């Protein structure tokens, strides 16, 4: 894979994991495993800062070209 697409790929994976976790949260809620709901929900929350970090990292690496 092209190196430049690595970050995009990571973000896509994060989003896919988000979908899975959200689904787990809803299901575990109905099975009344409330601890599991909290755990999965926590991971879901954590993924957002990770996504922001990947985005920022990508921007730093390519440079912000809006100034030239």
């Amino acid at each position: 894979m092209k190196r430049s697409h690595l970050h995009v790929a990571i973000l896509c994976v994060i989003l896919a994991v988000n979908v899975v976790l959200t689904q787990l949260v809803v299901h575990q809620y109905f099975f009344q495993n409330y601890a599991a709901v909290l755990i999965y929900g926590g991971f879901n929350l954590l993924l957002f800062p990770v996504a922001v970090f990947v985005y920022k990292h990508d921007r730093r690496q390519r440079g912000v070209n809006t100034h030239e």
Partner: protein
Amino acid sequence: MDKNNKIPFQEDNYTHNINRNGERTLDRRGFMKTLVGAAGLFAISTLPWGAVAAKELMGLGEKDYARQKIAEVSKVAVGDSVDFSFPSEHDSAILIRLSEKKYVAYQNACTHLRCPVFWVKEEGEMICPCHHGKFNASTGEPTAGPPRRPLPEIKLEIDNGVIYAIGVKRYEA
């Protein structure tokens, strides 16, 4: 001179394609922004679930039920069942006397599609007429057919020869 040829602040957005050379990067960046935004949306959407789950875990979801008379011990023979409703008149329930000392009660709306489950004495099982779901009478666990979750058990109390319903147990599935 040079002053006029600059963007005064860093403009990192993708609606503002002033820099034509950067168009492709901006496209890509816009896509990445959308991905990050979607991740944020997922994060926020799990918050309410987490909040309600936390509330349940802390026991705030436990309800208080008014104690309700079901029947007198002398009127229920071993192996018999009594229909009643608890906690409200719309929650039909069933009391079964399994042995001399052992009584169990469940809300008898089937956990599949809410048909009323009834007690079959000869087979010692609770059966749902709709799709032949079966439940173990001493635990409420489903043993056959479509249901996957146990029937909600009703807590009982026997006082002076009278059986009372005092609460509904939470699932521990």
